[in-house]
């Protein structure tokens, strides 16, 4: 455990990330410090390659900082072993990706139930939870549809429902509207905002200024540094 502000879901303290490359190391993050509390809707904007997604991955524990520390619910991700970190992601973090990454051979409800089953939920529990999540994202009538039968907006709603399956404390969305039209993108942004109002900490990485403006707290990044 590390010291963490009360109400903080995730903190980054002087985090750097460096990738060794044949032509010399690439510094993706240069000393980022950040705290995300419950109920926060934080957007991170900035040009391509500025380190937004890298920061998101570090906050979600899918990668570890080169230096500095990321604490997720009070526990340093660098101190956790691979499977403990995976377990933390499974139970406390939800991910939404630009490309949805729904499994095409599963129905919408099966995709949503997957994290619950992996977390060891019993048969009846996921069924009720999936139903409630489908209601939350407005897709009850699409429960038995496979990804190939859904529109882009519906796919992203299913992905959001999947991210919420294990009642995470933190939802990380990496360009969730990147493959959606403007109206659908706005609907997704509003859904994320509503989720943060329900107490979830939401971090949104986006190029879209209009979407970023929906957030209660906005950050801009450039060259691996938070500029505002």
């Amino acid at each position, binding site marked *: 455990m590390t010291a963490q502000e009360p109400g903080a879901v995730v903190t980054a303290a002087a985090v750097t990330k460096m990738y060794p490359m044949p032509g010399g190391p690439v510094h993706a993050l240069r000393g980022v410090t950040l705290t995300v509390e419950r109920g926060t809707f934080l957007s991170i904007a900035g040009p391509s390659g500025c380190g937004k997604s890298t920061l998101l991955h570090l906050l979600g524990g899918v990668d570890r900082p080169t230096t500095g520390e990321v604490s997720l619910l009070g526990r340093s991700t660098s101190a956790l072993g*691979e499977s403990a970190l995976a377990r933390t*992601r499974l139970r406390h973090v939800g991910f939404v990706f630009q490309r949805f*990454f729904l499994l095409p*051979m599963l129905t919408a409800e099966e995709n949503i139930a997957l994290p619950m089953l992996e977390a060891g939920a019993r048969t009846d529990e996921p069924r009720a939870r999936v139903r409630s999540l489908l209601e939350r994202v407005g897709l009850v009538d699409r429960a038995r549809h496979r990804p190939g039968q859904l529109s882009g907006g519906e796919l992203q709603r299913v992905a959001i429902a999947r991210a919420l399956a294990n009642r995470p404390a933190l939802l990380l969305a990496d360009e969730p509207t990147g493959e959606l039209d403007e109206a659908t993108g706005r609907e997704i942004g509003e859904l994320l905002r509503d989720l943060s109002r329900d107490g979830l900490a939401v971090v949104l990485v986006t190029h879209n200024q209009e979407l970023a403006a929906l957030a209660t707290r906005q950050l801009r990044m450039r060259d691996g540094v938070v500029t505002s």
Partner: protein
Amino acid sequence: MGPIAFLATRTLARSAARSLLVVLGLSVTGALLLDMTMLAGGLEASLGAIMTRLGFAVRVVPHGTLPFEGDAEIVDGDHLAAAIAAQPGVAAAVPILGTNVYVRRGPSRFPSFALGVPGGTPGMYAVFEGSDLPAARPGDPPVVINRTMAQLDGVKLGDTLVLSGVPGPYLQTFAALQPVHVIGIADFYFDLSGQRSLAIPTPFLRRLRDARDGSASVILVRMTQPRGAEALARWIAARDPRVDAFSIPGFLARAGRRLTYFNQFSLVLGTISVAVSFLLITTIVTLSVGERLGEIAMLRALGFSRARIGTLVLAEGIVLAAAALPGAFILGVAIAGYLDGILRSAPGVPQGLHFFTLTAGAVTRTALLLLGTGALGGVYPAMMAARQGIAATLHREVLS
């Protein structure tokens, strides 16, 4: 069904045609594997089944031979049989003489294998028409003939045959002739294909063969407590070094040593079939993993650990192998039946023996080998899937 098996099954169903082709391929290699497993222990299993059915727990033969192998004899077989019969746990010790004789029936002459048995010796043949040899009978000695002699030579119950130890009318002028009376027709358990056989009371066969009184080719021992067979075999061998005594497992071990080429043959072809199955599974699962690196990175991000992802990919290999099992068994049994027919039609093969024997052991070994190959085939792609970095893969997928 846990999420791993569920996902593995659904993943394979996703590319149904490709998975079906792989399963068909694995069914073929699995069939070959089953056949080789059946062949590896088939003769021993078949022989063991027959021997167990016959009910003799111990067999005593001249040292260094197998029953009816050549003309070797146990010189004082009757005495040894009596000594064995006196041992505790022994129900009966039956000396049997085996030799070739020549049969004359009217103008026709033909060779036959003859068993000299005490009257009423169950276990060497099964009478299906007429009756078995009685303990004693006045007049021409009775014989039981085999089905082949009845069919090929038209010998019937009540017919009289003349037996001789030598072939041809000129030699027979100087040799003993023995008229016999056919009282039964039977299936002899160890007849070769097309072989004529007959059973006759031992004294008459000794006389025909000019053999010493008390000589025997083999002594068959029936026990009330078959568990004591090994100890009895040791006692017999220690008592008379001119003989070898075998319990059924001991006998099968000696017979097995003479059949090692079957084991070597099955080992080579079985190994090839395992190797082909392994390559097939590794190739297809590696291809499949390569196509869904983004999905795998997503599963890792969602909270599937490296070990779970590795298990998922291994499970895909195992599911492919498991799906091939029914086809492998059906095809394997069909091919084994065909090959067994070919091998059994070769000269010198006893009729009751099978080269390919479907046993629970063969089925279990094949299933475990195929499933193990499935798991092994998944190792490389599992490592590939588990080792990939989540962030880097997600980044690549977005850019692609």
